[in-house]
């Protein structure tokens, strides 16, 4: 089920009403309702894959209980490995089987040895990377004794399958989300209104910005060999906004929806395109994944408190795995490597924590110095996105070759003027709202009610009148 579909527009109010009116007196029933709703939400796409979620849930629930019971290190390690094998095994099979088989065959053919392998028709289950990482965080935290294992299966199953963030995050930590399922919930008017506001802003980002950009991005990236450098540059810029609008829009809708049910999900995007260097960008982009990798991979590998050679290794490991997490294609690995190359100099020179706070926090406009840094960071990120969006590494290099020549300074063949106006308005609103959790959270907060509601109506009408046709969320494929 897509957030930007009519089905969801019917589904959400029904679940909301049942949750707050019919089952409001029983926490257990509310959780059961959320679990059923989550399975309906996921099963709407393909009910057969509910079995995978259920399997992950059962394994980690069981492992959690066993870890709670036993103190013997060997046994504890065994249970952890069992959970890792099952979860990563499923992820590996469904997501990476073809990639590894094909890469293996390609590698041998490079040496002149032709190999053949039978291929399977494997469908990638939507959101498998997200819920796998979420459930793994539970097992690892229980193993580390940072979290107590839950004995309530319904609570745990709902934590794994919680529909607002099931298929595209934010990847919640068990220590943050799981306890919320055992807490009594009371309807909070201002929290619910805040949730609605965030949903509205998420829909704007997705339907108006991302989906409109997608129309041009698809055309330009499909036929990149017939466009000038300037058009390809426009295509790359538009993809930067598409992926941001698409993914952060989804996160906003997810967080807003969770608020309607009295849950608090973590911020996933913190205005990443206002970052002044790559390190800051990675603290602001897909925060739930970055911190997951930091806590469960980077720090266990030694983080940055080891010898320089190991720091370099750790950074490359993190970024390459992060790339691979996004998809089974060399393009994502090169994208990860490129980001590692961007990031490494800052880390080695110990300049990776220079920009911690909000840019131009006390000012309306950024300084020229900050503006220049933001622009350079954005351009670097945009160039990396070319690898992310291209079908193959070869296509990405050809695209780059197409950008970096004298035609870069010609007038683009594709000039979506009105879309650029919309993007400028969007950037302006995000800039003004950068101190909040999302663009319009605290914006116009001091203005009279009429003005604020007028603005929300205008945003709604822009979605209605300028929104593009329904497109799937990019991150569903991950």
């Amino acid at each position, binding site marked *: 089920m897509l957030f930007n579909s009519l089905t969801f527009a019917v589904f959400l109010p029904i679940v909301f009403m049942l949750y*707050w009116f019919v089952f409001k007196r029983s926490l257990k029933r509310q959780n059961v309702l959320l679990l059923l709703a989550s399975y309906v939400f996921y099963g709407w796409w393909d009910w057969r894959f509910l079995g995978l979620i259920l399997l992950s849930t059962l394994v980690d629930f069981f492992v959690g209980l066993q870890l709670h019971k036993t103190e013997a290190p060997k046994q504890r390690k065994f249970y952890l490995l069992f959970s890792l094998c099952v979860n990563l095994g499923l992820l590996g099979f469904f997501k990476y089987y073809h990639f590894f088989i094909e890469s293996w065959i390609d590698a041998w053919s490079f040496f002149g040895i032709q190999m053949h392998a039978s291929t399977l028709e494997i469908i990638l289950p939507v959101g498998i990377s997200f819920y796998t990482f979420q459930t793994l965080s539970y097992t690892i935290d229980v193993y580390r004794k940072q979290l107590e294992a839950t004995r309530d299966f319904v609570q745990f199953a709902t934590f794994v399958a919680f529909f607002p963030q099931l298929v595209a995050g934010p990847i919640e930590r068990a220590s943050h989300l799981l306890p919320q399922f055992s807490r009594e919930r009371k*309807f909070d*008017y201002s929290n*619910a*209104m805040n949730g*609605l506001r965030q949903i509205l802003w998420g829909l704007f980002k997705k339907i108006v910005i991302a989906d409109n950009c997608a129309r041009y991005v698809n055309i330009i990236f499909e036929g990149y060999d017939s466009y000038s450098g300037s058009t390809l540059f426009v295509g790359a810029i538009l993809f930067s906004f598409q992926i941001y609008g698409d993914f952060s829009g989804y996160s906003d809708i997810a967080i807003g929806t969770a608020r309607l049910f009295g849950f608090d999900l973590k911020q996933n995007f913190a205005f990443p395109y206002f970052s002044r260097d790559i390190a800051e960008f990675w603290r602001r982009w897909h925060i739930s994944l970055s911190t997951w990798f930091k806590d469960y991979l980077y720090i266990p590998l030694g983080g940055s408190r080891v010898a320089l050679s190991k720091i370099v290794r750790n950074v490359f490991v993190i970024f390459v795995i992060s790339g691979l997490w996004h998809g089974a294609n060399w393009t994502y690995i090169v994208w990860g490597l490129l980001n590692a190359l961007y990031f490494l100099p800052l880390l080695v020179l110990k300049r990776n924590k220079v920009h911690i706070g909000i840019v131009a926090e006390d000012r309306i406009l950024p300084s020229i110095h900050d503006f220049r840094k933001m622009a350079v960071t954005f351009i670097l990120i945009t160039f990396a996105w070319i690898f992310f969006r291209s079908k193959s590494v070869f296509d990405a290099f050809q695209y780059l070759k197409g950008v970096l020549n004298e035609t870069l300074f010609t007038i683009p063949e594709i000039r979506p003027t009105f879309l650029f106006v919309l993007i400028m308005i969007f950037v302006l609103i995000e800039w003004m709202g950068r101190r909040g959790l999302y663009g319009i959270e605290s914006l116009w907060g001091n203005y009279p009610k009429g003005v604020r509601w007028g603005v929300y*109506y205008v945003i*709604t*009408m822009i979605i*209605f*009148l*300028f*929104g*593009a*046709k329904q497109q799937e969320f990019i991150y569903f494929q991950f």
Partner: protein
Amino acid sequence: MTAFLKRIGIIVLGIFGVSMLVSMGSLWALREGDFYKPSFLVNGVSTSDFDYIVLGASTGLTTLNTKVIDSVLHIEGINLSMDDTSISSQYLMLEHFLASGKHADICVLASSASSYDAISIHISDNDYRFLPYVSRGYISDYYASFSGTAAGVSGLSKWLPMAGVGYYNAELFYPSLISLVAPQHRNRFDSKGNYTYPVGSGASKRILSRHPKTIYFKNTYLAKIKALCDSHDIQLVCYVSPLEQQEAILEQTSYDVINHSTLLKDSRYFYDAIHVNTLGRHVASLQFSEDFRSYVISESFDKLRMTE
């Protein structure tokens, strides 16, 4: 909770009301302008009695130049073709033409070669252009006769204009703003309904062979068009436009057909495999005028003339 639900109710009602107003305004603006063919026919065409009309898809739109045909044969016609449409859309256009109080003696159906046999359960890509007139029964009935989201949304627009305008916002709302500011602005067609593709830079190349393509005239809407024409004393002539790579072989049919599929022998006349460019259009329109002359002066046509 009650306060929240009250507020949500007010918001939803407000959004609903504003959306309906904007949508109705948008469809009204389109109805008042000449932007798309259906409204151009109503507002931008003063003639009500034509010697002929051209109904078709992009092939009809870009091949038959009614200005050339009119000047050669000293008759009056108009091109009502729309790109990305099928024969069902052309049937709807004929209904719309007649319902708008207009009449023609001959209807030239210039659909694409493949359309004559195609059967689709979905509406055509550009059928939304009739949405400003969705309150008219024949248009809402047309949408209702198809399945799919687009047809459903379009049909629903009779009662809920916001459905169609929301679904086709880029195609309807932007143009409605243009229509509001410049009602006489037309969407890529001239005052006689024609459009042309530019001449490309490709080298001239003799076309030596073409793949045969048999046309059986099986499309059920073709029979409907014929019946509608007959009931209004309109003679129907089917036209197959020039093709670069195919030769239309006509299966024995009761329809009058002018087959120009092999008319142009050089690739310089083509914009792509099924569309001619400005050069090709000129040659095809001149040849069409010659072939069409016999219909214009035919006995039945004269008879029709006399009864008028």
